[in-house]
């Protein structure tokens, strides 16, 4: 084994990390800038965070995003887990390979296309666009990610555990809830967290499928920024980064726990 990093490796690592995280670091630092001018440093302050609390439009958008994220992640987790279990259980299911391949389609599909197809679909079935269409769109897209995460866990799952539960008198649904779910829940929770962040993050699909009165945070920020960067935007972005970072850390801890089990 190598003892440490050589000088070249260390430099490469530092450059790589800087490339990834310097823009974020600058944004976070400037969110604490006193100056109204985004490019001029005027000393430390939390005034933009206070201002944020007074910005109704931005807060409404944040609330919409949280609501959409929460509902869509929960629905995607339930549907995605059921899909993963169905695919894993049906060991002789002939179309299993094709179904598994279909799961990847929404992941590799360009978001613009996904957004457009969903928009056309909602128009075709004459569904009024709003919070619910964005939620439905997010369920569609994030469900596959949940399925993939849960499927990875189920690959090593001992199905005789579920058989044993039924053998001992538990009907199939109870066998699943009492034995299978407690054993795979870290994967389900990791899937939920991923679905939640993806939903919170999404601009393209939400823009296609949203309607009046349903402005999500990314849409709000994007339209604000087109009129020039306000310091409040830095502040709200910092809050979002912190949220996403917490969620990602939680998800990776859950995944680790799962691996250690």
């Amino acid at each position, binding site marked *: 084994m190598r003892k440490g990093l050589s000088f070249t490796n260390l430099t490469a690592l530092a450059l790589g990390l800087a490339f990834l995280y310097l823009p974020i670091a600058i944004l976070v630092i400037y969110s604490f800038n006193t100056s109204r001018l985004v490019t001029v440093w005027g000393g430390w302050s939390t005034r933009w965070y206070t201002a944020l609390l007074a910005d109704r439009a931005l807060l409404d958008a944040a609330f919409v995003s949280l609501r959409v994220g929460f509902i869509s992640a929960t629905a995607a987790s339930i549907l995605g887990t059921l899909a993963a279990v169905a695919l894993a259980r049906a060991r*002789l299911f002939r179309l299993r390979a094709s179904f598994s391949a279909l799961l990847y389609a929404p992941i590799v599909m360009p978001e613009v296309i996904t957004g457009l197809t969903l928009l056309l679909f909602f128009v075709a079935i004459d569904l009024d666009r709003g919070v619910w269409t964005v939620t439905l769109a997010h369920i569609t897209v994030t469900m596959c990610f949940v399925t993939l995460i849960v499927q990875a866990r189920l690959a090593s799952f*001992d199905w*005789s*555990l579920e*058989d*044993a*539960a*039924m*053998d*001992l*008198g*538990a*009907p*199939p649904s*109870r*066998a699943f809830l*009492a*034995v299978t779910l*407690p*054993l795979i829940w870290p994967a389900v929770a990791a899937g939920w967290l991923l679905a939640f962040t993806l939903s919170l993050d999404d601009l393209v699909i939400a823009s296609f499928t949203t309607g009046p009165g349903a402005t999500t945070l990314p849409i709000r920020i994007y339209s604000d920024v087109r009129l020039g960067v306000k310091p409040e935007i830095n502040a709200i972005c910092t809050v979002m980064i912190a949220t996403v970072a917490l969620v990602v850390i939680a998800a990776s801890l859950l995944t680790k726990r799962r691996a250690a*089990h």
Partner: protein
Amino acid sequence: MSDAAAPPALRFDGVTRRFGSVVAIDRLSLDIFAGEFFALLGPSGCGKSTPLRLAAGFDAPSEGRILLHGAPLTAPPHLRPVNMMFQSYALFPHMSVADNVTFGLKQEGLPKAEIAARVSEMLALVQLSALGARKPHQLSGGQRQRVALARALAKRPQVLLLDEPLAALDKKLRAETQFELKRLQRRLGTTFVIVTHDQEEAMTVADRMAVMQAGTVAQVGTPDEIYEHPASRYVADFIGDVNLLQGRVVRTDASSVVVACDGFGEIIAGPAPEARVGETIWLALRPEKIAVSEGGRAGVGQNEVTGTVVEVGYRGEQSMLEVRTAAGSILKVSVTNRRRRAADGPAVGESVRLTFAADDIVALTR
């Protein structure tokens, strides 16, 4: 032990299970009586687990019926009064030992006090009373095996199905556990059906056993019936060591048959009523049924063969000799090592005289 008039505890009635083009079991018919310790024995892949899974309800027969005490068994697994002990034990890893045993009783909705009493009774039965709070991963393999047994027995099943329950244990522990299992079965009086590929294990634990061959039953009987009266070459060869001599029937009467075997000359064997003169048959002769006398001393038994020892396999309590006859055939002969350090067994290169009784040879037409 069993009431002849009562229907068998478990009956397989012409049961077939196909997986695509693979026939896992083929028109299996088998009666297992109440209170019996029954073993399904066969090489791996011959279709031993499939009948258990069908009886437990995890899978359905393609054809045929399974009857429990005379009533067709069609309910889903959670409603069948049979329980299964899995090869992997399938203990719930997120529950303690006591919770594992409690699980099945809770599903029945028994009163709390009765559940608690039954759980402690079961843990005592398998000598795990002190370990109820442990998680399965904190137990040894032997302890896990006992938890699985206690969990399956807690529901007082009419039939307990055991799929290779001892396969994961080391040899010594396995031998001890076989006796424990037998004692337990006798004490509870529950019908046990065990699946194993280990013939010693089947013979040790079972009252009766079925030797399986590619999805069908080759022979059903008590262990000694199967060992001493195998019905076919397959059974004779699968159970224990055996010499199989091929030959042609020369004479046959009510008490014996005379067979001309290549490399041995004429051998008198036990009766073979179905054999006809001129037909090709096989003689099964167990190595321990052959008496060895060194040098010129005469032995007992109607049959006598001389040969040279070509190989000695020392096994501790006995040695397995390979003897080449004058005509060049090989016979396996076992000798018991009764005395310590005494050179009572023949050595390689020595010439020996082998004798064996006609009654100890089984003539097989299949």
